[in-house]
């Protein structure tokens, strides 16, 4: 989608980049440039005028000659007068950091793990030669992701079993719409026929996936999917917690409507949870860094989860 407003630095950056492209590949239409750079035609024109209006007024030197009449007709053509500028500057440190970290992140996703184009790119853009290490070798997730990617692109429904966060298994038919990666967790966003609503499904909890040949409905195609993964369910319960700073992320893993304050070196605030059973696992994972203060039923739900985990159903090998 074309962005309408950009700030001075970004416009400067765009002007430098247009110089590079036009001097390399020749004249372009403003509409082509708009499409290529992802800005509106109006912004492209502004950037082109930036290039044109760069005279050295002290020495009466023109840096670029621009054909104004052509620009009015939507064509961008200029030639170098006394300018030494032919390309944009190389990437800044922060640009490299931002792109390299983004590529690091993508490389950590199962389906891109062995992508040769990505590997080459990371050597070019990043200065990192080491690969990101994955905790799990195994390609179940990569295979699931490849099937889901195909289903989303072909706009066909999928059938699967889904294990929800309470461990309950059910059969689902889903119109798949988008694949979201949020840090290490991966989600399918789609219209669930059973719930008649847009839902988020953790990819690792999808079992026995089958891509059907049934096209998804026009209604599903028109759905807007919110950026946030968590839904707003009517049954949500507000739970007051206190966390060590190391566990600050608990406040951004759940919707939180209260202010988080710092008290005696700990963060105190409220999070909104869908089910008490699920709360148990999310608090227990921090092994004591997060504590539920109230309500009492939330406190006991966490205790019960941790107590059960202390006596795992899976017996030790050396048990008599």
């Amino acid at each position, binding site marked *: 989608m074309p962005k309408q407003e950009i700030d001075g630095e970004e416009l400067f950056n765009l002007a430098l980049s247009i110089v590079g492209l036009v001097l390399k590949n020749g004249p372009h239409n403003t509409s082509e440039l708009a499409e290529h750079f992802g800005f509106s035609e109006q912004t492209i024109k502004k950037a082109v005028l930036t290039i044109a209006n760069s005279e050295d007024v002290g020495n009466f030197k023109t840096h670029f000659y621009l054909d104004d009449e052509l620009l009015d007709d939507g064509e961008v053509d200029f030639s170098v007068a006394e*300018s030494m500028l032919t390309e944009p500057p190389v990437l800044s440190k922060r640009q490299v*950091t931002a792109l390299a970290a983004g590529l690091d992140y993508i490389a950590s996703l199962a389906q891109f793990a062995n992508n040769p184009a990505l590997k080459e790119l990371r050597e070019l853009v990043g200065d990192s030669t080491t690969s990101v290490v994955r905790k799990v070798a195994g390609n179940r997730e990569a295979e699931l992701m490849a099937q889901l990617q195909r289903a989303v692109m072909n706009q066909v429904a999928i059938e699967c079993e889904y294990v929800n966060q309470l461990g309950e298994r059910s059969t689902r038919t889903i119109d798949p719409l988008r694949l979201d990666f949020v840090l290490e967790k991966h989600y399918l966003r789609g219209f669930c026929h059973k719930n008649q609503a847009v839902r988020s499904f953790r990819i690792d909890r999808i079992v026995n996936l089958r891509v059907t040949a049934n096209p998804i409905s026009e209604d599903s195609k028109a759905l807007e999917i919110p950026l946030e993964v968590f839904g707003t369910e009517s049954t949500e319960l507000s739970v007051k917690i206190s966390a060590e700073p190391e566990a600050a*992320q608990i406040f951004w893993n759940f919707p939180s409507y209260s202010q988080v304050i710092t008290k005696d070196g700990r963060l105190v605030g409220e999070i909104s949870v869908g089910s008490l059973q699920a709360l148990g696992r999310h608090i227990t994972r921090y092994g004591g860094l997060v504590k539920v203060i109230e309500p009492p039923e939330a406190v006991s739900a966490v205790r019960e989860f941790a107590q059960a985990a202390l006596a*795992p159903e899976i017996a030790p090998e050396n048990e008599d």
Partner: protein
Amino acid sequence: MAKQSPAQRLFTLTCCLLAAPRLGLSKQEIYDSVQAYADSSDDAREKMFERDKSSLREMGVALEVIEVDAFEEQSAHRYLIAKGSFDWPKDLELSPEQFQLLELAARAWNNRLMAPSAQSGLTRLKALGVVPNSRELSVFTPRLIARHQSFDPLAIAISQGQQVSFSYRKADADASVRLIDPQKLRFIEGQWVLLGLENGELKNFLLRRIVSEVKILGQVAQISDPASIAQAEAELAKFIDQQVAVIALRTESEAWWHFGAPADSEVTLTFMDEALLAEDLMEFGTDLRVVSPKSLADRILRGLERVVSDHA
């Protein structure tokens, strides 16, 4: 002529500096050449020029100031753009597929400081003229979240080359104040990691364990050479490879599916940090059991016991 916009001012300044003689330009020459400066009052243009110098540097234009012997103080400083600022690697070519990956990487950012940098970097690479030829990656929406309070100040300190200090608490230890020359932020195993020099030695710090505000100290940071950084990264990767845990999984449980549904219901993992792995495992409750190492099993036991007693 109409007043120059900030973008026009930066662009003209860049052109003038690039066209400058080997000794660069004096401030007065710059003020005479760039229309926006010529049109402004002394005070206003001093401020503008200061701002523009830092903008150029932020954008990766290496603006240098050299001191020369001069009678007048005004002409004692000369400005020029360092060689290399505009030198792209020869034969740099990106394939349409690589371009798609870069777009995905830029789109992943969800941080108000880094998202614009990733986008502007992408714009610059688009000057190479490659057109992505397919939409197959458009079904993905990656979100790279950097909400740690320490993230923005560290990113700023790195791009400005400044020292930082913060209080850091390692697992099982008390917090201590660290003085660091920050080098690089990386995302490893779902964690943001700062690579920095402490007393000249390259070390890794988990952003999660920075328990105070990050102070930018206004001291120039020592910058490590790329070879040392690559070596430190290789050492971390090797360290992770050597830390191995074996986990037994309950068949058909959520944990079993999560870890790839292994036929023998056992999975071998490598990890960067035992305490962080313990968190990932404790979440599965009764679904799994640590076979080895014992320190991990004990850590999980202690963690669960603490949760029980905290919620008694």
